[in-house]
């Protein structure tokens, strides 16, 4: 249809100069609805980053405003030799990878359980979504005070129930700080993964599964050779979106441990450098390092999404 219209358009005799003008005008008419969003995004998200890049090359501490100037790569040297920032890079990687992988695996398990018919399935699904819908700060406060508290938290309360008065009463947060943060995040993000994977399972072509069953395939074979390949793109999507959000996590670290006990991730560390130390140059250099790291991960992640998009176009 489009081809026909284009052919007609080509066949119509027109002065060549005007055609060019008309085409350019038509292109701008097409672009017009896009421009406000594009300009807004560039101004609000890209310009600050350019500014960060500039500030990262400057000597600038807000407590010492007169001593401002070009610092070259000093801030970067400081960032890479600062043990806090180096450990923050490691913590961010471990935290993100652990939370994404564990929630994906648990989410897959839950999605498989919910993909079957049983009494009260709707209610169970609703209960499973609830953790994701608790405001993140509220969830972090809940875990810190109502669950982890060694004296009256629910976890130790349950231990007392099970094993009586001499039950072990671990100090959850000071004993295993990173694990404590991770557990609360896994609790919040597993429902997210489950929802995406469940939707993936339900979009699976049923006739192929039926045919395989009739041909005598075991449930494991059906899962391994039909379900899992079909779910692959949903697993990738969940991992991608989960990583985007969890890399940037601030609420849980800020609330549960205040970045102490070796749980300070990059967002928290940069927040602290800027908020408490007032070293604008070094905070910006750290920001640039985070961005470069994110770009490496993002390039890979975007490739995943672009394969999804191509499939959609083909489908």
């Amino acid at each position, binding site marked *: 249809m489009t081809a026909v219209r284009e052919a007609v358009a080509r066949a119509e005799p027109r002065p060549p100069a005007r055609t060019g003008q008309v085409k350019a005008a038509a292109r701008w008419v097409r672009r017009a609805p896009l421009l406000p969003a594009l300009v807004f995004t560039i101004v609000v998200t890209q310009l600050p980053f350019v500014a960060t890049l500039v500030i990262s090359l400057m000597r600038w501490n807000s407590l010492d405003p007169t001593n401002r100037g070009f610092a070259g790569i000093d801030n970067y040297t400081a960032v890479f030799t600062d043990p806090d920032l180096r450990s923050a890079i490691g913590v961010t990687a471990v935290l993100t990878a652990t939370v994404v992988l564990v929630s994906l695996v648990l989410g897959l398990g839950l999605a498989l359980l919910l993909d079957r018919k049983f009494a009260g399935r709707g209610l169970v699904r609703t209960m499973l979504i609830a953790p994701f819908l608790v*405001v993140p700060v509220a969830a972090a406060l809940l875990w810190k005070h109502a669950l982890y508290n060694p004296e009256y938290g629910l976890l130790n309360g349950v231990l007392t129930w099970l094993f009586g008065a001499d039950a072990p009463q671990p100090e959850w947060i000071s004993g295993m700080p990173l694990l404590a943060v991770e557990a609360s995040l896994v609790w919040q993000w597993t429902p997210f993964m489950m929802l995406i994977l469940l939707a993936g399972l339900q979009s699976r072509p049923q006739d192929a599964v039926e045919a395989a069953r009739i041909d005598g395939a075991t449930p494991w074979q059906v899962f391994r050779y039909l379900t899992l390949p079909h779910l692959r793109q949903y697993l990738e999507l969940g991992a991608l979106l989960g990583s985007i959000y969890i890399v940037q996590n*601030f609420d849980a670290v800020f609330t549960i441990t205040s970045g102490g006990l070796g749980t300070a991730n990059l967002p928290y560390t940069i*927040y602290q450098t800027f908020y408490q130390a007032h070293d604008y140059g070094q905070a910006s250099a750290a920001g640039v390092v985070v961005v470069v790291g994110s770009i490496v991960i993002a390039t890979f992640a975007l490739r995943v999404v672009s394969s999804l998009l191509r499939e959609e176009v083909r489908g």
Partner: protein
Amino acid sequence: MSRILGLAAWFAGLLFFAPVAWMVLTSLHSEPDAATNPPSLAAPVTFDSYAAFFDSDPWPPLINSLSASIGSTVLVLLLAIPAAYALSIKKVEKWSDVLFFFLSTKMLPVVAGLLPIYLVAQYTGMLDNISFLVVLYTSMNLPIAVWLMRSFLAEVPGEILEAAALDGAGLVTTLRRVVAPVAMPGIAATSLICFIFSWNELLFARVLTGVVAGTAPVYLTGFVTSQGLFLAKVCAAAVVVSLPVLVAGFAAQDKLVQGLSLGAVK
């Protein structure tokens, strides 16, 4: 076997729901009853903590959160819908590059731009101002909204658009009769997701607001005191602040899934 798997699902559901149930139960107990070991499940129910929460004047932060969330959601829709139109129905050249540009901004960690944003707010006198948060939340959610709306608008059947054009239907008629029915569920999913993410946001609000424009999450972080028991009050505050998201999310579970998956799942 089938019965065991059903029981397993119930067990998992109850396990994940337990902290939420515990939060609600604790909020309904008196402070001493909330802080016992082992827990006192059957302690008498009281609304004292809710009364204490509402006596602490939580309305300014709650209203701030509401204005920031609704304001930015409206602004996101106003910007995202035309953009999505130009990326799906009347496609601009290189539309997929533009789409990926939007997504890539989402991968830029917000902390990286925090300092310049703070300085701009300081120099323009926009610190502690809710409209500044509206702009930031809009930029935070716009890429998601563009992706979501595009994936919905991409389902507008091209043949029907052409037929409408051949029948001489104008732009307004086409938009209303052909595009709107496909776009409405997308707008609903987009609004839900943008509202939730804005309502939940802590980092920007914490750095850029103070006593005037502080949002509900910021208010929550200040609710923990070092003196005396506060567990029931914290839980009551957490319940109240989470309630809008819980209600909206439960009421629109399918929209939630569509939104979270950027429209990949419909």
